[in-house]
């Protein structure tokens, strides 16, 4: 009777430091940040009198924060979709039992071993209009402006879909506030270069886990290669896709190092992200409560992605 309880005490003792550390440094500080975001601490000296949601109101009214939120959404959508598509493509190709598969696997996976800072610096050099890719391919720097391109693509409010949206009272969707900043797409390229190999590795593991019998059975039933992929492999890879989307999504919603190394602001903040604004608001402008509010908004964005996944994961484990 005593032995299990001693084991239990020991294991509790062993995890206690990390529980304590996580409790204080993660959850404790999240709570503290949440509290600070509701105070009037917008000067250097702490002022903990409550200000309600004034800091959130002021942040959301800031045109730069609005641009940053748009940028984050654009970056996340393009980055996640492109990484998953490229990763799946690479994995499917490698799964054809090609020669030197291990070599290619390493080549595609290797960018992941590099930090985002290095990736950002290298791609900055590659995509600087007056050098890099433009010089290499003989492109005109004044039209191929990459991350210095100020264009924001958006629907035209007077024609096509934009007009239809306008008729339904959704005309605001056809404005640059809901457009796609072209400069951000250069950053997406760098991020996809880095992370698609990782997605490939996930899918490759998934593909290897699918028994050969299933493919054989489908082929016997008359399915072509595309049919096998579309109706057998892809459905079985759903959990992998979900994991990949969650992992990439939480990276992209918090992205800071890549953009700061490659293009911290961009033309009219076209490559600015909330984390960059948060840092500046806190440590340059001394507006700690406003910065804490930005932090909480970022936390909510990530939580919207992560929490349903954790719940789903628990259900899966419970039923398994």
């Amino acid at each position: 009777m005593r032995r299990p309880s001693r084991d239990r005490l020991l294991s509790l003792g062993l995890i206690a430091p990390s529980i304590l550390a996580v409790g204080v440094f993660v959850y404790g500080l999240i709570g503290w940040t949440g509290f600070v975001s509701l105070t009037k601490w917008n000067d250097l000296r702490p002022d903990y009198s409550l200000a309600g949601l004034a800091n959130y109101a002021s942040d959301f009214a800031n045109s730069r924060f609005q641009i940053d939120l748009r940028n984050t959404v654009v970056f996340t959508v393009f980055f996640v979709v492109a990484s998953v598509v490229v990763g799946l493509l690479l994995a499917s190709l490698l799964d054809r039992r090609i020669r030197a598969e291990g070599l290619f696997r390493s080549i595609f996976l290797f960018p992941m071993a590099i930090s985002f800072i290095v990736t950002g610096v290298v791609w900055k050099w590659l995509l600087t209009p007056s050098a890099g890719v433009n010089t290499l391919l003989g492109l005109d720097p004044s039209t191929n402006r990459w991350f210095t391109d100020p264009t924001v693509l958006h629907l035209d409010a007077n024609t096509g879909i934009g007009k239809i949206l306008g008729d339904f009272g959704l005309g605001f969707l056809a404005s640059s506030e809901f457009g796609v900043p072209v400069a951000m797409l250069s950053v997406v390229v760098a991020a996809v270069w880095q992370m698609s190999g990782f997605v490939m590795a996930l899918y490759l593991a998934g593909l290897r886990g699918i028994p050969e019998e299933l493919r054989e059975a489908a082929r016997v039933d008359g399915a072509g290669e595309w049919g096998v992929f579309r109706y057998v492999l892809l459905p079985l890879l759903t959990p992998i896709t979900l994991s990949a989307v969650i992992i990439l999504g939480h990276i992209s919603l918090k992205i800071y190092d890549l953009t700061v190394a490659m293009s911290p602001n961009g033309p009219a903040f076209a490559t600015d992200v909330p984390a960059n604004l948060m840092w500046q608001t806190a440590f340059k402008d001394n507006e700690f409560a406003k910065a804490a509010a930005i932090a909480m908004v970022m936390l909510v964005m990530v939580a919207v992605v992560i929490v349903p996944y954790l719940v789903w994961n628990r259900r899966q484990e419970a039923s398994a």
Partner: protein
Amino acid sequence: MIDPSSVRSRLALLGALAIALSACSSAASPAASGGGGSGATKVEVFSWWTTGGEAAGLKLLIDQFNKENPQWLVVNQAVAGGAGTNAKAVLKTRMLGGDPPDSFQVHMGHELIDTWVTTDYMVNLDDLYAANGWKDKFPQGVLDIVSSGGHFWSVPVNIHRANVLWYNKKLFTDNSLTPPETWDQFKTVADKLKAKGVIPLALGDKEPFASGQLFETILIGTLGADKYKGLWTGTTDWKGADVTQALNTFKTALSYVNPDHGSLTWDQANDLIISGKAAMTVMGDWIDGDYTAKKFAGYGWAPVPGNKGIYDALSDSFGLPKNAKHADAVKKFLTLLGSSEGQDVFNPLKGSIPARTDAGKPPAGAKQYDDYLKSAMAEWKTDTIVPSLEHGAAAKESWSSAFTQAIVTFVTNQDVATAQAALAKACVDATVCK
């Protein structure tokens, strides 16, 4: 019965705890100990000067001080990177955490006043100013900037000028041009250069301060010294017609810049001047050091159009925080920084001019001022001094950020009305305008 394996794991746990505890205590100790083996007491001077002439200049001053005062050991506790933003972040955590350095580098003016003085973290230096007679040595414009509430708060070591137009001499003589003195002349000159296939104005605003600073000098050129100063005290209306005019001039100037300005830093833009691809650039006089480092002598300088007789100044200064552990040593060190000798040791290396009007003659054998600095010193004595916004002298940091944000947006969309509204709102948010 005692299970030996559980004893071992308990020992391991204890060991891990011991390591964790010792890691905590060793992290806390460097601030408390120090002094080294010499028996001298360590005095921490906090700066972001880690490389180049500024670090070398500060080191000379520190060495001189340590030699004359063997009981103290002044150390340059530098945090590199980010034009001081990293250092400022570390400084803030230390100050708020109740562990201030003995002295720290800070831009004179509102960056110091609104961050540290109004929040009551600093000790005023009135006695130092009185004892050294600095009220007669620094020009009134500087005394106005370093003081607040009738007290002096920091000692300016150097002066940089932000409103200088730099140009490639060969391009100007080849095309028989003279540096423009008004923005109308600028347009004529720029059109001629453009026709020759030369970029008239080089700009590198990857770091947004560069475009903010260009607009700052246009504001000075359009409004004049007094009305420009009034922008920061609430006496000049941000919605006025002259600010509109300045924005329109800025728009004109932007039509003459290199198309890749957003991907270049100011020194990369300066390479365009050196290679002769561009003719002019507006930048602070730290660019003088960039020319020297790149061994380029074919450059000339003039005030930015409309800025003649006005000195848009910024300065690195040092102050004394409350609860500094060695206030006596700091006051002695600040005395050296504010002295003629100290300023003449430091500034030729840093590539700036002394804040004192009576300095300017470094001892023989020491590094001397170059031609640009000599001309700047002459103008420093006669020009009207105004505070630079982008470099912390004119307004507090959050206002400066909001101003820069409006200008960065303007550079892309060139919408005068929106920019002016944003500039006016920034003044209201800073609680200076109503």
